[in-house]
């Protein structure tokens, strides 16, 4: 457990950790850089301040110097979390038990802190897939599981279209997108990609089952049943960085047409669909940190909007309105042909 791993996300953010974190393996590096963020599992030996009066609460939380401390005061096992220095060099420490029981919390916290750090540096994560073509790229954001991955995988051909990300993309103030290639989970649909056969998906059973909502609901509870493939994108198919030229918002509708939309409207939509899956107020520990350690979490969303405004300055924004998954890649190709 004492082995440390280093990640460098496009040299923008460097992370040092000794546990598995929700950051793509693609960014793992051998060199031991000076990290921007440290995520460490270790024994924590702080104690809850003595109180005469017991309080009705699952855990105690308090501030000490510049750190936020949380202790569940569990007997025998030690369930503790510590967050430090979000303004400068964030450190997250937790005990083994904390990680085991609150893995989801820890992962959310890591993602949020990564996002805050990116915002500080003039970048932002966007809940969007991204595909590159020639020297440019297109962002494809969408709400929930409505076809981001499908659209990107269908477009790839290894020549003109290359992969950047299927779920999260980093956007800079200067309008450049950076790849964020995590493992790709495909949904219960049939996908044929003739140029790159191994990207094809044909889940015979689940694609049929998925037509019934009751099955989808059960699958929704057990995502591992739902995902038919867990793809790792080969490095030669990935573009690391490209200038954003288009933004395609995937949404429902009967038009089956790409419709140009207003920039501010597009930005609001990108923002709300990002927040829906990566809510800045979705982690209790970060909320406590913000309250007790005087960190202004509430203005970060406006910061993110400013970065989006500048980053998407010269970008053409379209809304892809269709109820048919298979139309999205066609519509994108059509716009590119214009």
């Amino acid at each position, binding site marked *: 457990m004492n082995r440390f791993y280093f990640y460098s996300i496009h040299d923008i953010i460097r992370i040092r950790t000794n546990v598995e974190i929700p950051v793509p393996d693609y960014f793992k590096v051998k060199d031991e850089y000076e990290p921007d963020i440290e995520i460490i599992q270790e024994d924590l030996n702080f104690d809850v301040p003595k109180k005469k009066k017991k309080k*009705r609460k699952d855990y105690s939380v308090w501030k000490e110097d510049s750190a936020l401390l949380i202790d569940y005061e569990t007997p025998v096992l030690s369930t503790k979390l510590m967050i430090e220095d979000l303004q400068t060099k964030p450190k997250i420490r937790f005990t083994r038990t904390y990680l085991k029981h609150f893995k989801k919390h820890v992962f959310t916290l890591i993602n949020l802190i990564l996002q805050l750090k990116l915002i500080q540096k003039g970048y932002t994560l966007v809940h969007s897939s991204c595909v590159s073509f020639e020297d440019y790229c297109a962002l494809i954001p969408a709400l929930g599981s409505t076809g981001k991955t499908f659209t990107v995988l269908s477009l790839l051909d290894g020549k003109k279209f290359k992969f950047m990300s299927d779920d999260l993309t980093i956007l800079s103030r200067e309008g450049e997108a950076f790849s964020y290639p995590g493992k790709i989970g495909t949904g219960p649909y049939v996908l044929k990609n003739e140029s790159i056969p191994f990207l094809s998906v044909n889940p015979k059973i689940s694609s049929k089952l998925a037509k019934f*909502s009751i099955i989808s609901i059960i699958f929704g509870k057990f995502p591992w049943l739902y995902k038919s493939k867990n793809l790792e994108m080969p490095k030669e198919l990935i573009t690391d960085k490209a200038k954003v030229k288009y933004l395609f918002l995937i949404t429902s509708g009967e038009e089956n047409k790409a419709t140009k939309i207003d920039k501010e409207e597009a930005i609001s939509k990108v923002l709300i669909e990002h927040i829906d899956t990566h809510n800045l*107020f979705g982690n209790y520990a970060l909320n406590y940190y913000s*309250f*007790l350690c005087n960190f202004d979490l509430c203005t970060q969303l406006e910061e993110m909007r400013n970065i989006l405004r500048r980053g998407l300055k010269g970008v053409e924004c379209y809304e892809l309105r269709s109820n048919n998954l298979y139309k999205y890649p066609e519509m994108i190709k059509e716009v590119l042909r214009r």
Partner: protein
Amino acid sequence: MDVEYYSIHDIIKVKTNVKLPILPDYFKVKDELTTPDIEVLVGELKIDLPEDKKRCGIFFLQGRGSSLFIDYKIPFLDAKLIIDDLEGKTKIKFTKALKKFGKVEVLFNTILLLKFIQKGYALVHSGCVNSFGNCYLISAMRDMGKTSTVLSLLDGNKFKFMSDDLTILRDDGKAFSYPTKVGISPFTLTGNMVSYTGGRMKKLIAKSQLLIFILENFLKFELSERKEIPHELIEDEGTIEKVFILAGSREKEGIRKIDNSEAARKILMTTAELLDPFRVYSLNYYSYIFDLDTLKLFNKEKEIIEKAIADAECFELRANKVERYVEMVKEVI
């Protein structure tokens, strides 16, 4: 349930046939209100989304006119939801099945928060006591001692009750009462006016953390009780004089004067934790489809809070024991 009407200080009128815990009985009115700002109705819904409607994760949705339709299309369960016109007279309609599984209460809480902002008010996570028209806001994160502090201050004479959890603020520095039922456990300090009536048995149980854990998690046992504050102890409005932020402490206890902007930030943060405007996905979908700028409203909420407390003195109180907060508040006043 029959249809009930609520009027929150004439700012917001609600019509509902569902129990909504966030609405204090204090605001219930007998007369029928003709143009409610928010209508919440459970009943049969005859909407049929065409089969080829788009699926979002586990449900189908469509924007039609000013309404968002959501249909889960579960066999044997009729789970549907309509959210209509968030920027005008809002209507939320849903079926029984959705009420059971759909967390309608949370949806309503968020809509109420947004509605207040649209009307120029901020519903914030703070307790509030009133002394001859002067309001003292007491703000903190959950379980940090708001209720204990508020209840201990009450004396029915010098200090009156406005709220222990949520308070309505207006940008001209006024605060309005929001007297929800107060959650009291044997650990809550209650002062003289209100007290815990759980009996000796519960007080004994309260001595063991382990016992509470077992009983509450496995046996539907509820240690704390929710009590209505007697109406004669409630004052309806006043001018915000002072703001107290309860911050806990480890070693040093003390009172620190803080910037109004810092206090506003903290009030907004704890409110965002309790009433997070982005938590409910159906509302996020609504914002997405109808281009409702929730973030703009959230920024406006911040502005209202800042203006509301602009003339107040703000303090941060650090103490290890809840009793000390009460003494500190009295000392400052």
